[in-house]
């Protein structure tokens, strides 16, 4: 009920963003039902058809066709599937690993804290996409490699916030009380420390989703991400580069889908942060 109330008070831009996100997620989940055509079906007579045109062989194309006569609308819909999968799975991977490391660092302290924070330092001196490229050179770029890899993006952010939570909890009365009652460290961390550190971590997660989506697109754009024929927004934009003069829609349509998604996520993430942080709300 409370959630509904907050939603009704949200400004129109947030409502619009939420609607857009809902649409993208539905497109991703129900791609086979929503997409008008098979995203890999080619129509070599109807190549590079402009948006809204009809090909004699393959029918109406809302967003046009690409260089192989494939329906761009259908490919954008299936591309949403890749982006949303990475956004969700990737965020969960980084969140779980980063939060656990951060909680341990903050709660246990000492050498373990130093070691984990040192890893955070190392991570920050190399851009994540470079680490991804190294890992892809080593392990290849199958989806089983890519999802955990891209998921690691932003782990250091979660780690730092979770560590702060762990540190604060270590000196608190309620942790002292449960220690006195004989709770194990694992119990204390999961039952008492984690719930108190969770709010900022959720905020970091929502803001990180954009980064995960853009990282996957960048890798696909470089030809090092999810491999063809699976349609992804990044690889579609890359394919469209050769046709910017004759068929701009090849690159622009998947780009527009990507921007609508990332912009909506950013807006919603920022809104969630404002809702959760009373000091910002007052400003």
């Amino acid at each position, binding site marked *: 009920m409370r959630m509904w109330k907050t939603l009704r008070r949200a400004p129109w831009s947030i409502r619009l963003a939420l609607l857009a996100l809902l649409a993208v997620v539905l497109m991703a989940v129900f791609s086979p039902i929503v997409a008008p055509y098979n995203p890999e079906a080619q129509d070599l007579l109807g190549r590079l058809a402009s948006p809204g045109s009809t090909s004699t062989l393959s029918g109406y194309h809302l967003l046009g066709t690409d260089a192989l006569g494939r329906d761009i609308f259908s490919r954008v819909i299936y591309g949403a599937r890749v982006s949303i999968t990475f956004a969700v799975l990737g965020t969960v991977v980084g969140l779980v690993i980063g939060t656990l490391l951060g909680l341990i660092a903050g709660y246990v302290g000492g050498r373990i804290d130093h070691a984990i924070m*040192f890893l955070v*330092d*190392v991570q*920050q*001196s*190399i*851009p*994540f*996409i*470079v680490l991804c*490229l*190294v*890992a*892809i*050179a*080593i*392990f290849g770029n199958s989806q089983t490699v890519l999802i955990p890899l891209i998921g690691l993006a932003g782990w250091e952010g979660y780690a730092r916030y979770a560590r702060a939570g762990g540190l604060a909890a270590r000196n608190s009365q309620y942790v002292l009380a449960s220690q006195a009652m004989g709770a194990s460290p694992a119990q204390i961390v999961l039952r008492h420390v984690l719930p108190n550190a969770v709010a900022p971590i959720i905020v970091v997660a929502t803001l990180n989703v*954009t980064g995960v989506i*853009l990282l996957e*697109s*960048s890798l696909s*754009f*470089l*030809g*090092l991400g999810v491999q063809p024929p699976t349609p992804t927004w990044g690889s579609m*934009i890359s394919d*469209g*580069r050769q046709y*910017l*003069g004759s068929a*701009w829609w090849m*690159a*622009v349509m998947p*780009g527009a889908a*990507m*921007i609508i998604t*990332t*912009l909506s*996520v*950013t*807006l919603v993430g*920022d809104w969630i942060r404002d809702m959760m942080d009373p000091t910002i709300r007052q*400003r």
Partner: protein
Amino acid sequence: MRYIAIRFVRSLVTLWLVVTLVFFGMRLAGDPIRIMLGDTASPADIARVREAYGLDQPFVVQYVKYSANVAQGDFGNSLSERRPVTDVLRERLPATLQLTVLSMLIALLIGIPAGLIAAVRRNSAIDRLIIAVTFVGQAVPGFFIAILFITLFAVTWGLLPSSGRGDWRYLVMPVAALVWGDLASIARITRVSVLEVLNADYVRTARAKGLRRNQVLIWHVIRNALVPVLTMLGFMLAGTVAGAIVVENVFAWPGMGRVLQNAVLKRDFPLIQAVVMLIGIAVVIVNLLVDMVYGIVDPRIGKP
């Protein structure tokens, strides 16, 4: 001084750890020689080339040799270009430096004033506009902006060349695409940090003792608000380099980003190691410089 010395040693250890991780990771990846020579190579050829590159020796021996060489500035031979890695780097590094340094400077020159104006005129139309622009900046990746630029300025209007490196006209679009990526974060951080400083006690004191608004802004607000922005420079460099990898690809810019991409495609491990190391060194150096400047800007930092 002691503070900076500690940071310096830490940075060295960080770099050494990165080199080590990359080295052992690479050796896990399978046989670079087989990839280099293709499936048709005879076992004798493979053995010969492997010996030539020193890859027939045990891991640990290779590692010690490699570390010693790297310490002397020798990164070995590139597998795909068949010449010393340092030659490749010397050839390509200036192009990337030109792009990244120029973009970072421009982004700072636009981003800091924008953040400042937004904070000082909080909740005004211009503040809202700047915030809106930063949102779009965060959501739209540089490579897509680059594509839009090419479509408009190169393909449609024919004003600028769409790829390659040459006079200033070749720089405009790649630099603009990279500035795009940095601008949003700089403006946001500046704005938040200025807002915080504006609420600080010493600003109220300065105002109360009768200083003019602009005097307070210059002597008290800007100076203190820039500290968090300074902290971001290292991250910003890392971000710009990350952006450059993709943007160089779009504009066929002959820099390190393209080198890295090709090296990854061809599994040219010596080259990959050198590029990663170089990026690490750059970020570490910038962070060290930031630490030093810190002590000057804010004397409280660095005194235990």
